[in-house]
């Protein structure tokens, strides 16, 4: 009994001190609070029918976003804990083990459980509406993608309070992460959670590739696609090519750890460098997976709020294709210091610099979209306008990093940290915030408050610069990433303190955003027109939020900026008057995706703790739910004409 108690105390990390106890307490309170609230307001059935079982792309998109914002909170808290620890020399707020775990979860969560669901959320929210169709190509698969992501995120976050978090960095290089140096379940959490969400992401890539290729409204040729949809199309292609490489790398490492193979160990003749290659063959395209959709968002926002057509549409498309191709031939720049030789380093250095060319073209095209426009600085536009200088600094320091001999000095230093936060926050996070302000009325039928939006932007943007600009200098001063503390006497203390103040300011910006969401839900301006920004693409032709079937009659597209053209010529989105509605074919909701993801969760836990019975139960459950789907014949329904008429009449569109 005593043995079991000891095991349990260790397993639930009660011997790790007050941080863990506090987390346990907060998680407990939140869980009980949610359960009580759902029961008290009798919302369980509503939750199940409307959200948990939905296959509607709009609702799935919203769920992705909610999850992404929660993960931004988690990852941001990790970041603040790190900044607190580093704010002054020789602090012992966190010990080395805790710090190592926190920087690992910060990176992993921000990339895979914050940036990815945020951009995939907007794929879901906007793409089917922009191309004039009623859902994605595979709505049921779409729900599976979401629930796999959700199960993986849950599993990964559980590591904080059960068994211990991974501590190998988000890149997780062997041989450090092999059992010999890094025993325990932590690293397995990383491998299994990424594997599960990776499967979901590959499915998303296939889904949107097919949606854009096959589901466009008549007349919507490829060269008439809104730029955001183009970016999603190209991103989906990158996902389909890049993510399988991650799947392989993670699987090999997991087999090493769970079954004692020697793919990446040194003692058994394995080759750790091979993992590093595989990881970055996925890892570099991955950063373009999160940045290209942000480029798409900026294209939409800049053109809408300049009240002008996007400048150089074809050049925008060509440069995205060029970026996509180049993104696959630059991965070695992540390890110029691995001794690949001058020929290899030169090639990858120059190919990396070359990415600046198409990216520069895009920057100029955005500038010239604003040129001669009438630029309205709404909150969404502020993020887009703020993106240009911030991303420019990130991109150009990226070019500096692409010079291999210079990189020998920058590698892994705070110069690098500053660089990639400038591109990832200045690019992706700014893009996601722009999209939130831009599409919020379309998602919820309410506008976010502009004044709070401006406060949010300025606090966050200034905080971001105060936090990360000084870090370029820390790099020159010799400070490396992943150091949990540093001695006095290097002159690092004051710069780190400034950086921490900036991080706190970013946290304040985030709180203003949360307040804005809550305030606007209650008092915000309602969007009754469906087109609050005088938009250009088709999503603004629907009501806010769009009806379940999106378009009562699929529109015929006559050119780029389809809705803008229709408004100019006075056409209705429902076509000429008197065209009768027909019953609309829609997919049925299904509870199976969430149940399947539960089995994935169980199997994942089995592989993490090496409890094979659990793993087998989980995998069998996955197989059974898949087989069930194969025998499901009644997976669709028709929305009757009367119901469509009722909905359209309520929106004043008859």
């Amino acid at each position, binding site marked *: 009994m005593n043995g079991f108690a000891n095991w349990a105390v260790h397993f639930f990390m009660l011997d790790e001190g007050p941080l863990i106890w506090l987390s346990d307490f907060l998680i407990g309170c939140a869980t009980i609070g949610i359960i009580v609230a759902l029961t008290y307001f009798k919302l369980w059935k509503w939750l199940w029918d409307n959200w948990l079982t939905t296959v509607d792309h709009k609702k799935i998109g919203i769920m992705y976003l909610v999850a992404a914002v929660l993960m931004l909170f988690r990852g941001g808290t990790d970041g603040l804990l790190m900044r607190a620890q580093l704010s002054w020399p020789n602090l012992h707020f966190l010990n*080395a083990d805790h710090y*190592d775990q926190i920087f690992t979860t910060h990176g992993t969560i921000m990339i895979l459980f914050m940036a990815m669901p945020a951009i995939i959320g907007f794929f879901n929210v906007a793409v089917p509406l922009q191309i004039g169709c009623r859902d994605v190509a595979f709505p049921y698969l779409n729900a599976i993608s979401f629930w796999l992501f959700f199960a993986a995120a849950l599993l990964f976050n559980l590591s904080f309070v059960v068994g211990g978090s991974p*501590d190998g960095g988000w890149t997780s*290089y062997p*041989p*450090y992460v092999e059992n010999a140096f890094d025993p325990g379940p932590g690293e397995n959490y990383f491998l299994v959670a990424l594997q599960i969400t990776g499967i979901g992401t590959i499915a998303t890539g296939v889904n949107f590739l097919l949606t854009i290729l096959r589901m466009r409204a008549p007349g919507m040729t490829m060269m008439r696609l809104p730029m955001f949809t183009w970016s999603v199309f190209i991103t989906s292609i990158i996902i389909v090519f890049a993510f399988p490489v991650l799947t392989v790398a993670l699987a090999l490492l997991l087999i090493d750890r769970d079954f004692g193979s020697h793919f990446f160990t040194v003692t058994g003749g394995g080759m*750790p*460098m091979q993992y590093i290659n595989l990881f970055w063959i996925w890892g570099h395209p991955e950063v373009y997976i999160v940045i290209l959709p942000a480029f798409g968002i900026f294209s939409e926002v800049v053109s809408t709020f300049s009240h002008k*057509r996007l*400048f150089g*549409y074809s*050049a925008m498309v060509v440069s995205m294709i060029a970026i996509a191709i180049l993104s696959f031939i630059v991965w070695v720049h992540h*390890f110029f210091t*691995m001794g690949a030789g*001058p020929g290899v*380093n*030169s090639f990858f250095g*120059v190919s990396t*610099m070359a990415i600046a060319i198409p990216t*520069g*073209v895009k920057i*100029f095209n955005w*500038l*010239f979209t*604003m*040129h*001669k426009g*009438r630029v309205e600085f709404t909150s969404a536009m502020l993020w887009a*306008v*703020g993106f240009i*200088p*911030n991303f*420019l*600094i990130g991109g*150009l*320091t990226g070019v*500096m990093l*692409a*010079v291999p*001999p*210079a*990189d*020998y*000095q920058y*590698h*892994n*230093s705070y110069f690098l940290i500053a660089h990639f936060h400038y591109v990832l926050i200045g690019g992706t996070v700014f893009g996601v915030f722009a999209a939130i302000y831009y599409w919020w009325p379309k998602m919820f039928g309410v506008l976010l408050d502009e004044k709070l939006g*401006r406060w949010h932007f300025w606090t966050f*943007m200034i905080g971001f610069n105060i936090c990360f*600009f000084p870090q370029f*200098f820390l790099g*020159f*001063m*010799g400070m*490396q990433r*992943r*150091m949990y*503390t540093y001695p006095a006497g*290097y*002159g690092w203390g004051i710069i780190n303190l400034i950086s921490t103040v900036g991080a706190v300011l970013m946290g304040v910006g985030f709180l203003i955003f949360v307040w804005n969401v809550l305030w606007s839900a209650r008092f915000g301006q309602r969007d009754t027109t469906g087109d609050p920004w005088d938009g250009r693409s088709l999503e603004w032709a629907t009501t806010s939020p769009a009806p379940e079937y999106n378009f009562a009659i699929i529109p015929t597209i006559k050119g780029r900026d389809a809705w803008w053209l229709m408004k100019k010529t006075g056409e209705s989105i429902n076509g000429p008057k008197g065209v009768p509605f027909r019953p609309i074919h829609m997919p049925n909701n299904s509870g199976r995706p969430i149940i399947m993801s539960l089995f994935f969760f169980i199997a994942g836990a089995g592989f993490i703790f090496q409890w094979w019975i659990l793993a087998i139960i989980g995998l069998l459950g996955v197989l059974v739910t898949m087989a069930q789907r194969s025998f499901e014949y009644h997976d669709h329904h028709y929305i009757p004409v009367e119901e469509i008429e009722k909905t359209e009449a309520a929106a004043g569109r008859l």
Partner: protein
Amino acid sequence: MKPSGRRVRSLFFIVGLSMLAMAGCDDPKYMPVLSPQGPVARSEYYLILYSFIVMLLVVLGVFVIYFYVITKYRARPENKDYVPPEIEGNTKWETIWTVIPIIIVIALAIPTVAVTYKLVKPPKVEAATTAAVGKSLTIDVISEQWKWVFKYPGQNIETVNYVNIPAGVPVNFELTASGPINAFWVPALGGMEYAMPGMNLKLWLEADHPGTYQGRSGQYSGRGFAHMTFNVNAQSPADFAKWVQTTQRTAPKLTQQAQDQIQKPGLLNKPLTFSSTEPQ
């Protein structure tokens, strides 16, 4: 409401100025990367400076257009009725801003490739140290969890957590690791290279003058990684020769017990010196 980038620009300007100021500051202690103390670090520093200046020109160019556009074309009550023209694109301008970046990339690529090739060879010995022409020293470096072991095969000396080198002589560090990957980095003398198990990478470094330069690990390798620092003591060739002789005569031999202590994960509280490289 202010144009959103103005603050960024002024911030960038101020920090850019202070950066130049600090680059001019001669204390290598604070900005080792920007005050190189050897030929390798110096050629890397020139590349950093060159690429920084080129990028600064790009930043300034883009910022001029940026601020022009967002101030001139802001929506104001006066231009409420202005209807922006629908402009498809402009081939001439689009060609210009494709060609200029291409030229910039070429201008950056040529010295980059040249220096990348140059750094795999030993640095040229400069006039001040003619005594050392043609000489070089090889030191094997092994990263342990979490310490640095230096073996002098020619001198039969082993040091832990510090290394002595002759100033003005190119030193060939041969890097490997026992256990996780680390990166061997002495910012004042030159950029880093990975120390990896089962591999043997070369890194040429040279110090101009006698002095002590701090080195550290540049690649996370676990709990004690932040403490993996070591001193590189560059001595005049005569002093170095004297140190070698004294060490060979007076330092203890490496014992199996000491070897085990070094290989056990953990930190050492002081540097060690031995007069043999294999346990006796």
